[in-house]
């Protein structure tokens, strides 16, 4: 695998839309060709080379290409946009749309990422070592299909509207999440090791939420359905089981009505 390292040399005055920073766009290009790829600052279009130093040539295909992003990219949007293979390592924190519409490959963000990360993600892996913003793995505005495949791991906290309209895939958040986890979800699995606030699973049709910590306010549409023993990451514990959202429409599979499942760990006395 070939590695391309891009390092910020001129910070943008406004915000930069760098939808070309992905293994797919870099594949088969030399460092000089990569520096010629377009980026957008407001209504102006210029080259990647104006803002970044580029070293190393890309591999022949996206799968053979690894990109390392160095320097302050807190004002850079769309890192790993629509990537299908390869690797992207962001050494600091990034702005909106990290890994949006990604279908494969692996992104490692060592800092925080802002909102709309993994929008409508279909596959691949996204690891965020810091915190994630709002709308992680959610649908794009107006769409009814959020994250449908792949894996997301957030080592810190995540914002609100995580997994909105999620239809598949798996998400683990080691910290806390804000309101509206998995609103409108129709599939997938989200595990929150910390606490959730309120409106968890609102209008959810299908899918699974597991909360290890507390939930400030339960949705009235989630009905208690006993207790279950679950083993997650090698830890066995007892969880309260809820089904819902009883107020929402319900799907049927083989004549049986199905509900979304919410498991909340019962804290040991």
């Amino acid at each position: 695998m070939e590695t391309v390292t891009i390092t910020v040399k001129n910070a943008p005055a406004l915000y930069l839309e760098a939808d070309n920073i992905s293994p797919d766009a870099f594949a088969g290009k030399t460092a000089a060709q990569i520096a010629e790829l377009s980026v957008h600052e407001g209504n102006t279009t210029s080259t990647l080379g104006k803002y970044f130093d580029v070293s190393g040539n890309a591999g022949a295909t996206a799968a053979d290409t690894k990109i390392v992003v160095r320097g302050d990219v807190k004002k850079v949007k769309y890192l790993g946009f629509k990537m299908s293979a390869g690797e992207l390592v962001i050494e600091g924190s990034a702005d909106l749309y990290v890994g949006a519409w990604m279908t494969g490959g692996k992104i490692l963000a060592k800092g925080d990422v802002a909102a709309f990360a993994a929008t409508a993600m279909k596959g691949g892996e996204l690891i965020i070592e810091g915190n994630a913003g709002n709308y992680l793995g959610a649908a794009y505005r107006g769409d009814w299909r959020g994250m449908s495949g792949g894996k997301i791991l957030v080592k810190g906290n995540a914002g609100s509207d995580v997994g909105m309209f999620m239809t598949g895939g798996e998400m683990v958040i080691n910290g806390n999440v804000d309101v509206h986890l998995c609103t409108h979800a129709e599939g997938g699995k989200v595990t929150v090791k910390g606490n959730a606030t309120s409106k968890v699973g609102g209008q959810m049709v299908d899918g699974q939420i597991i909360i290890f910590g507390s939930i400030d306010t339960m949705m009235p549409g989630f009905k208690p359905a006993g207790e279950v023993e679950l083993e997650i990451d090698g830890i066995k514990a007892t969880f309260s089981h809820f089904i819902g959202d009883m107020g929402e429409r319900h799907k049927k599979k083989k004549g049986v009505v199905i509900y979304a499942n919410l498991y909340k760990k019962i804290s040991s006395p």
Partner: protein
Amino acid sequence: MTKTITDVICPFCGTLCDDLEVVVSDDGKKLLEVYNSCVIGTEKFLHSQSPDRVTLPRMHQEDGSWKEISYDEAVEYSAQMLAKAKKPLMFGWSSTNCEAQSVGNEIAEISRSCCDNTAATCHGTSLIAIQDAGLPSCTLGEIKNRADRVIFWGCNPAHAHPRHMSRYSIFPRGFFTGKGQMSRKLLVVDPRITDTARMADVHLQIEQGKDYELLNALRVALKGEWLPDVVAGIPSEKIRETADILKSGRFGIIFFGMGVTQSLGKNHNIDEAIALTKDLNEHTKFSIMPMRGHYNVTGSGEVFAWQFGFPYAVDLTRGFARYNPGDTSTIDLLTRGEIDAMFTIGSDPGAHFPISAVQHIAAVPSVCVDPHLTPTSGVSKLHVPVAFNGVECGGNCYRMDNVPIDCRKVVESPEGMLTDEEFLIKVRDRLKQLKGVA
């Protein structure tokens, strides 16, 4: 002698009352009295006669003072600012007519700006929900003639839309509502005991920020499913009782305002309210309508949607329209420092935005087109006074139920003063020259 002009449209709130009478002097230059209007509407008309009205564009000077300049100089500054900026923002539009909004959209397209209207701080979240869930709605006339279940959720029309209840929603005797308020049940959901809540048959004094839970509980109650004992501070029996009241009506309407659109849950509250309306339609006829604030904010959404495909928060910087509130919405653009020029028209963000957003307006080149002196005109570099739309010039406006109504000119504007549309046309033509667009 004086003249009385009848059937005048009120350019204040989204109710767009069309039965005002205005008395003007014989030469049509002075507006003397306003009848039938609420106190806010009356003030809007009379304010045009204010003796301290600004009549010439003014530039903010280094020492904080203002220097009067000509309209031509104001056009030059505005066009240059928009031509040079990498990411200009054109905000407002809700207190001007659709004709001016359309010219504004041309300017936005040439300068590749972001453009947004006051939905950013009010019903923008409703627009997001409408895109997600649709909007089973109706006109205010249908409500007057048919509605026997009226819900005001998170809104206080007694103060914000003063004639709404007397013209459409509570008191009027309509075709199927011959007994006026006696034929309607009024439900109010509000954490406060507002003047609207005082009139209600049922007031659900909900815990703040739990509208989403209560809406969800009502949907659960309609389906006859299990409910916790208390939801959002309301006992479950009360919720089931309310669901029965709603079901038993012949025609119901949910009006909702800022109390749900801008409190915790935002667009999801409206999404759930639309879903509740949909569910209620399995039992009876139900509609839902946002209580739009500015008299032509609905029109701004219509014009944006007609010309760009999205109702607000449109980003044209890349040469095509993009829409994603959170990224392309005004407050986010300002607080994140994403824009480098601000053009405000027909709105007062200075009074309504978070202070960090207003600070950014003050930090960049900025133009404020407004007949009034406002906090926004105070922080902008250039203030361009214009004629009062709906008072000194006519134009098309949309009522809160999306019914277009033509506003009327009732009095002359001060001599030499331009209307919004005339000023924008001059800016557009100059911008075309600067950008070399045919």
